[in-house]
């Protein structure tokens, strides 16, 4: 079977998986207990007004009609209209997506880079102090609850230290930019990076340990292989052996890990976004789940599913490039 046949099969499978996912997403949210109107229950909004809202949201229509509306909304590009805000879900997502991609993307890059480099370093120096320190530190930080670390960093660097140092060390308490933001573009960018620092440090600290441990174990396994021994016998330097032969061999599983984490780049991190008041997709989705805002849940999960499925597809295709042993 050539690559073309393999690719066609994978694409068809992907479409089927996507359609099943879309259908399940619609049904699951209808089955889960909860009523979207619950968010509006208040004596100030009498019963007839609440019933009018349900009509406006289309929840009084038959299920199959709601399903067709849902499919139309997904593929029309607007992803539906939020019950809570009456805004197009796509507009609300586009408002938040840049913030989430900035935070999660930069954190993912740093986490991956740090985790892989530490893992390679530790795995190629097994049993040394570097290895022990990397593993210990990785395990410690991996086990830290993100809300604990985030809150500790926020209060320390955004409140106590600014007060203690008279503003010499002063990280922001909330937001993606200062309120009001600087008008000059370079200063605006710097201001944004300054606001990004604490949430990014939180995510990288929590996240790099997992990569470190996995890459370390993969490296240890790979470095015991015969071809590594052959490379050593050939007189290759250790740097070439570790990076050109060792790391190259473990790239396929690492790329799978990276591929699976792609949806997180879009989906956000609800706890970190909450602690740092970061206007992102994670918190948006969390609130939609609490408020039974079906269009938001459906639209956002559709995007996340799409990203996950396409990432997996891309990883499958990339495998052949990374590992020449793989033939279709």
């Amino acid at each position, binding site marked *: 079977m050539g690559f073309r046949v393999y690719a066609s099969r994978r694409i068809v499978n992907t479409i089927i998986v996507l359609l099943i996912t879309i259908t399940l997403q619609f049904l699951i949210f209808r089955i*889960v*207990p*909860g*009523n979207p109107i*619950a968010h*509006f*229950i*208040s*004596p*100030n*909004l*009498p*019963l*007839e*007004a*609440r*019933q*009018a*809202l349900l009509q*406006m949201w289309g929840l009084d229509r038959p299920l199959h009609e709601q399903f067709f509306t849902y499919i139309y909304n997904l593929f029309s590009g607007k992803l539906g*209209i*939020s019950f*809570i*805000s*009456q*805004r197009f879900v796509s*507009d*609300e997502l586009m*408002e*938040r997506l840049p913030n989430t991609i900035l935070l999660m993307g930069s954190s993912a890059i740093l986490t991956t880079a740090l985790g892989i480099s530490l893992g390679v370093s530790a795995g190629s120096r097994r049993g040394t*102090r570097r290895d022990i320190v990397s593993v210990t530190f990785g395990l410690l930080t991996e086990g830290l609850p993100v809300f604990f670390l985030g809150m*500790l960093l*926020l*209060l*320390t660097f*955004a*409140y*106590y*230290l*600014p*007060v*203690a140092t*008279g503003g010499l060390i002063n990280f922001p*308490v*909330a*937001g*993606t*930019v200062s*309120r*009001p*933001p600087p008008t000059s573009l370079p200063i605006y960018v710097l201001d944004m990076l300054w606001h990004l620092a604490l949430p990014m440090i939180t995510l990288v600290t929590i996240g790099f340990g997992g990569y470190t441990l996995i890459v370390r174990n993969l490296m240890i396994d790979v470095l015991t292989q015969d071809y590594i021994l052959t490379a050593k016998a050939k007189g290759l330097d250790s740097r070439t052996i570790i990076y050109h032969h060792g790391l190259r061999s473990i790239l396929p599983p690492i790329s799978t890990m990276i591929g699976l984490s792609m949806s997180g780049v879009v989906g956000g991190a609800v706890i970190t*976004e*909450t*602690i*740092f*008041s970061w*206007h992102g997709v994670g*918190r948006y989705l969390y*609130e939609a789940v609490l408020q*039974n805002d079906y269009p938001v849940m459906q639209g956002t999960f559709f995007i996340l599913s799409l990203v996950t499925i396409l990432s997996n597809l891309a990883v499958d295709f990339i495998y052949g490039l990374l590992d020449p042993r793989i033939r279709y």
Partner: protein
Amino acid sequence: MDEILFVFHATPEAAVAAIRKGDIDILSDIYRPSDVEALSQDSSLNITFSLQTHYCYVAFNTRSAPLGDKQLRKAIAHLVPRQEIANKLFGGITVTPMLYETSPAFGKWHNPDVVVYPYDVTKSKEILASAGYSWTQDGKLRGPDGKILRRITFISPTQEEAPTSYEIAKLVVEEMKELGFDAYQEGVAFDSLLTRVMTERKFDIYFLCVSNLGRYPRWLYDYYHSSLDVPDGDNTPGVRDQDLDQLLYEFRFESETEDEARAAVWKAQAKTADLAARTPVYSRYQIEAFSKGWAGMIQHKGIGYFTSGAFWTYLNLHRAGTDKGGAVKIDVGGRVRTLNPLYGTGAYEQKIIGLIYDSILASDPETGDPIPYLADSWKIESADTGAAKGQRITFNLVRNASWQDGAPFTSRDIKFSMEFLKKYKIPIFLSTMERVVQVSTPDEFTVEIVMNGTSIFNLIDAGGAMIIPEHIWKNVSDWRTFQPDREPHPSKPGLTKMVGTGPFILSEEKPGEFWRLKSNPAYFKRLPLTKPEAESTRRDQPVALLNPPLIATMVVACVIVFGLLVWKRRFRG
């Protein structure tokens, strides 16, 4: 003020840190005792406590035995340990125990002469005994028929979702068990709880809170009229009392004068108190903090100084020692999802919307009575609306008001607004607009609104309806998805379509983060300012050198540095 900047903080920790650090000037809706204590110790801040129309209650399902027995409900109402709840769960600071369903925050609408049920186990036993209940030898409660009472289930949110509500239910159940009830607490996911209570009516007892009940206890109608004893109606206990129905209807729809309305609602409160279908537990204070150096804030009865609805404060707020001008930063309090004035009903959205759009009448901050605003006078006459009695309300508008883009404000805008709200059946104005029969404009500054019914609330509702500019909204194809703050004004650069007649103009926003309002230079009101007070200026933040997190951080840093030095010396030679 020249400028108001509303900013969003997603957690109370961030908001409290922001005000202590000086990033913001005003913080409302403080509810955690630890935050109140921390802010109280900050000498650069003032803290205020205001009664608000927030209300937490225990409700009984009167449809089934034994809770259909009023005496049993009264006995259980006497078992609610309100003071213990306030002290144990709220530090004795942030809430006040409530005995009245319509609290004193409602001012003249509150009837203080109703039967109340303070915590009193002895009284509870007396009520039960006199109602024919008795106890078995092992302390189990028996009904008047001699049979042991069935299990009574108290549903509450789960401990994970709402630990305070869970604990409150637990305390009440424990008290009930002590008295011999076979009481059981069931923690239920909040969504399921609402479904069981509101839709299915499958409950015995539940605990819930409501807030922002408005200035008038009109919600009593929704809570107790038998017509609302339907799935999703607010009469969850299932009260069906003809006399009460009559009183509530009279209060809500028929009272032509304030005295009539008051008389009806006071009698209704006496009835509901006697029925004991709900028993109040506590009401949360509106706790607000603001940095020293500000003056001109006005307490709004049942609301507070700065929170949503505290309109007059923002018209008068100024730096102490000056009579006008300045910029203030305020925590908005919660997520602002839309600034569409026809849909943004949340308290946080209203903080912003309420400063951009005016209404025909305003409310007196002390009494809540309607006072002239966009209308400087009005007249009410009887009208024949066909089937029922009605009213014609004639508003005489001020002549110097204008929209923020300079277009004149006239009676046509009011006619357009009301017809727009009615045509599209905008949900939040539905009950008001259903009563509007006709709107006419004899001239540019006079508008006549004919409404069904003769209630005093016709004036209040008509006077409080959202007034939107015809020249902007007549071209709106879908009012639901229209976001006036996101679309540029068609002819005025620098403005958006979010144009009102209000004292502030939306000048900048970053969605989800901040909203910047600047004062409207052409605002039609020139309000008397409060006398500048001799407030102390804001003190510099004291350097908190001895706080535990800082010490811990410094210790850890020292250990790391020392460890590195030792390692370097020992292993590197």
